[in-house]
């Protein structure tokens, strides 16, 4: 087996590598083509990518539960959380604990509502989270009227925008989060149960896994992470505005899919989501450097998502064909080498 074949075999199991390669290539091209690119601009990209990573990780948990589950409420949660942070913290570090508590509480509440609708009432996840998003949109409008000013707690501001020896604190937070997630997925019982539920729900149930609990926790994780992200994002931009979470809806899904997490569920890659987030931000940055209008940036993002899905779809197809082939074999009894008719 030569090196290329060995790599392709390895890459099949480590799908995150593609997004990592993408980051590397695009980064090199940008560095060569433009002189403006430097390490400090990379840290800027890391900073933007960190916010996307946090939402993406949450989205990844939901996608991994399978059956086309997607959390469409993340955008509204981000926006609402940013407003709630303004309302609770009021620019005072002293109120920070309350603010973080409120953000977590908001995430828990939305996650619980989504779980109730999806798991308890059997409503398809897309519709359920869509409807939740509507309700949150109104809550956002109401809190928008209630806020008195855009003051951000200095401590939170430091967390969201500060750097330690050139490295954004936010990037450290995101990378630490990715590390924890990767550990949970790989080395804890929960990670294994999540993957099992996403691969084959019936088999999971018959293996005594409590599917409902696993699915519900994925939705709760997603909402809590989106909510915390909203808190930090608000601090980063120094306030909050309506629709501020909107770009994260498609981008979080794109980051998950690009990062090698299977859209059909069962297999997740936290590292892949991190690299894919960086890649997406790099693409947007590139387009800004090239001077493409904002509309063109949307178009490119949309095409990237569809293109990656169309490619990934084929892998799943061939795998499915393999399963079906094996299924045929199962439908029949084997050869036993002769017909034995028992005497009467």
């Amino acid at each position: 087996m030569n090196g290329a074949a060995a790599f392709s075999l390895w890459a099949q199991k480590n799908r995150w590598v593609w997004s990592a390669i993408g980051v590397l290539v695009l980064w090199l091209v940008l560095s060569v083509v433009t002189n403006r690119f430097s390490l400090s601009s990379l840290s800027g990209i890391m900073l933007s990518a960190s916010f996307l990573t946090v939402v993406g990780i949450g989205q990844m948990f939901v996608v991994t539960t399978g059956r086309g589950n997607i959390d469409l409420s993340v955008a509204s949660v981000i926006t609402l959380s940013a407003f709630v942070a303004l309302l609770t913290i009021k620019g005072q570090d002293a109120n920070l604990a309350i603010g973080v508590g409120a953000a977590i509480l908001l995430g828990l509440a939305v996650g619980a509502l989504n779980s109730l609708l999806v798991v308890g009432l059997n409503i398809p996840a897309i519709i359920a989270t869509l409807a939740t998003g509507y309700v949150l949109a109104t809550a956002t409008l109401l809190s928008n009227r209630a806020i008195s000013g855009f003051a951000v707690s200095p401590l939170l501001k430091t967390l969201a925008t500060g750097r330690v020896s050139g490295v954004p604190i936010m990037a450290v937070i995101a990378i630490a989060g990715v590390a924890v997630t990767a550990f949970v997925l790989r080395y804890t019982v929960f990670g294994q149960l999540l993957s099992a539920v996403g691969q084959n729900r019936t088999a999971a149930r018959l293996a005594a896994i409590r599917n409902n609990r696993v699915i519900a926790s994925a939705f709760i994780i997603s909402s809590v992470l989106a909510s915390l992200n909203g808190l930090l994002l608000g601090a980063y931009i120094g306030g909050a505005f309506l629709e501020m979470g909107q770009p994260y809806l498609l981008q979080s899904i794109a980051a998950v899919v690009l990062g090698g997490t299977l859209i059909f569920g069962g297999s997740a890659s936290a590292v892949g989501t991190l690299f894919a987030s960086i890649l997406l931000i790099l693409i947007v940055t590139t387009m800004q450097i090239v001077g493409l209008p904002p509309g063109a940036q949307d178009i490119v993002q949309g095409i990237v998502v569809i293109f990656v899905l169309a490619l990934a779809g084929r892998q799943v197809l061939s795998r499915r064909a393999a399963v079906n082939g094996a299924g045929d074999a199962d439908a029949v009894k084997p050869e036993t080498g002769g017909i034995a008719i028992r005497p009467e």
Partner: protein
Amino acid sequence: MSHLAVADPEGAATMPAVRPDVVSLAKITKSFGPTLANAEIDLAVSSGDIIGLVGGNGAGKSTLMRILCGATSPTLGSISFAGQSVNFVDYDTAEAQRRGIRMVHQELSLCANLSVAENFFLETPGDAVNRPGWRALYRARARAALDAVFPANGIDVNAEVGHLSIAERQMVEIARAAATPGVKLIVLDEPTSSLDLDRSRQLRTFIRERARSGLAFIFISHKLQEIIDIATQVMVLRNGRAAWRGDAADTSIGRLVQLMGGDANSIHQHSAATQSSGETLVKLSGFLTAGLGHDIAIGRGEIIGLAGLEGSGQKELLHAIFEPDTARDAAVARSVDAGFIAGDRQKEGVFPLWSVLGNISIGSLARRPALGLVSERANRDTAADAAGRLRLDDKRFGSNILELSGGNQQKALVARALVADTPILLLDDPTRGVDIATKQDFYRLCNDIARGGRTLVWHTTEDAELLACDRVLVFSGGRIVKELSGEAITESAVVGASFAQQADAGVGSGHRASGVGLARRLVNAAPFIGLAAVLAVMISANPAVASIFGLDLLLMPALSLVLVTAAQMFIVGGSEIDLGVGAFAGLVSVLSATLLYDQPWLGALALAAAVAAYAGLGGLIQARKIPAIVVTLGASFIWMGLGYALQPTPGGASPEWLSAMFNWSLGFLPTSIILIAAVALVVFVIDRLPLGVVLRGFGNNPTAMIRSGWSPTRYALVRYLVAGLFAAAAGLSLTAINTASDINSGSSFTLLSVAAVVMGGCSLLGGVISPVGAIAGAVTLSLIGALLGTLNVSSDFNAATQGLVLIALLTLRSLTADRRSEQ
């Protein structure tokens, strides 16, 4: 697929002395990896033959029939029609149908959401025309076909198949196959499994009649007395080989049972040393044991076999023991933990992405706390112990589970149950499709496990395996009809008990709770009630609303949402959701207010290209089997991006002719109401045409559609084309109504359209188009803003109201829905 009625089989029936050969299979061998499903089977069918095909589960019947019908190619062997040989490379289902072979599948292939007549259309679409009344032909055909096979059947050919009982569906399916023009051979797979005695007799009479006029039949059934009664010849398959073929007159039920019999290889008899220690682990009572007259207690160390004809309630009992009903008077009660070993490995057993080790260790992980740590080494040690008992080589732990043979996959599943270490093990036909060596390992293990004090409840379709059990419960019609133990367990006793009770097992279907039915009707009427209520409130608050001008002012903005809803409805009808449809309408609006206004030709071209791109997306989704939600969400960014690029800020102007289309008045009726009604009418007409029927068919049962020869990709394209046209119309209406365009103007419609479609009664599972309900829903939703204004509620609550309406409706639907589709 052509349906040329070249030769009416009835007319050609002059019964020549030598009956012409219809089709013959020679030396058919089919292997799946190491296992042989069919081995050198010869099967010649002459016109007028009625061949009874019998054999145990997995004897190779279905593989042979799949080869005959072109669904599978054999490894070796040949097929010829009337002496003319055909290469298997060119032989597929469409070719088989062209040559007059039709199969009635056991799992019925009708579209439940279509009427009986429409299902007849799907099979012979060639005669349909695009004009009102096209169904009349198929109605007449269905009527005639049903009456020919089942006189006095009383089936309404206009009734939705989903509303028919299982028996009636089976009758429709049989009649449909029999009525196909040009048919020469009909394969009936368990055709009488849910027919009562009279219908079954009618079917047999019909078969005899048609056989006399030259039609050939292959009749597969477990009901051996029917085979003896109807067949002219009988073929017995066993372990993939033809065990016997001869005249039906030369055989008997007893002889057939014996020919089909279990494996000759002896099965370890369970040494009845460790008998139940008195402690009851599982208790069966209530309706389950009503026929026995006493409850059944299952104790420690027992092996309990579940027998009976397939689908008589054995699986249900296993699942009930696994997840007992918590009600106090439940028929099944269990006192200790139970583990499950699935026999349907692909659907219920394996985790396809994982290695063998992962597939085994999940058994113990599932019972540990969620935040516990997983250690590969500990997993390996535990699994190695279980695998050793099963003779599963632990060198294979690293392989993907799908790379293993069926037998070794099954060993991994058994190992999964062993590491879970539960006092009760439930086995769901685990030796299905497993090689004999694995079976022997498995039987040995079962004895070990039972001797170790664990209880096995074992559902098997191989009667010989029951000899290994301490007790056997024989099922029929969902109940236990006989309990055998010890020496009384013999194959003939089991077969006797399962067949003896067959007559009692009538057609058990068609029970519907009327209370739930009423609730469902109320939910279905919700959009109309809602619309009426909203309008009533608004008119009472402001009587001017009721004027023509007032209604127009209120309803004209609803028109765009109505159009987007129509588009979404066709997508949802195909069990998908389009999250880009609103953005697409916005893009069309921008195109029409800019390009179309400035350069009409270029604009028209751009619009056509946009619609084509939209349709192409549908084709892509189907061809690559990728989730529509994500693709359309991605597409929404493309539509938005294009819109922004064309027109960064709102503006543009509406072409005059376009404005004129929406700006006329009849004086006595609000224009908006006429336009909305027109949209409903167009949707209704498309839905009623043959095209609409095909689209709905795909939404309900794509497998059946493909079996009838329809192309899924082509109709995905058509579906998205229709939706794209409606969405484009919505975009044009936006431009005309606003006399300018804004790329964001359509965005809010996406989610609203989904809500409206759901309100209107369309199932998100697909297959339902209800133009009036969905459009009433759309109008209601778009009025919510105005209603809140009338009630002096801030428009901030608009979105929340819409969201809550959606949640409330879905909750109601979920609570009143059939529980059939679950899991």
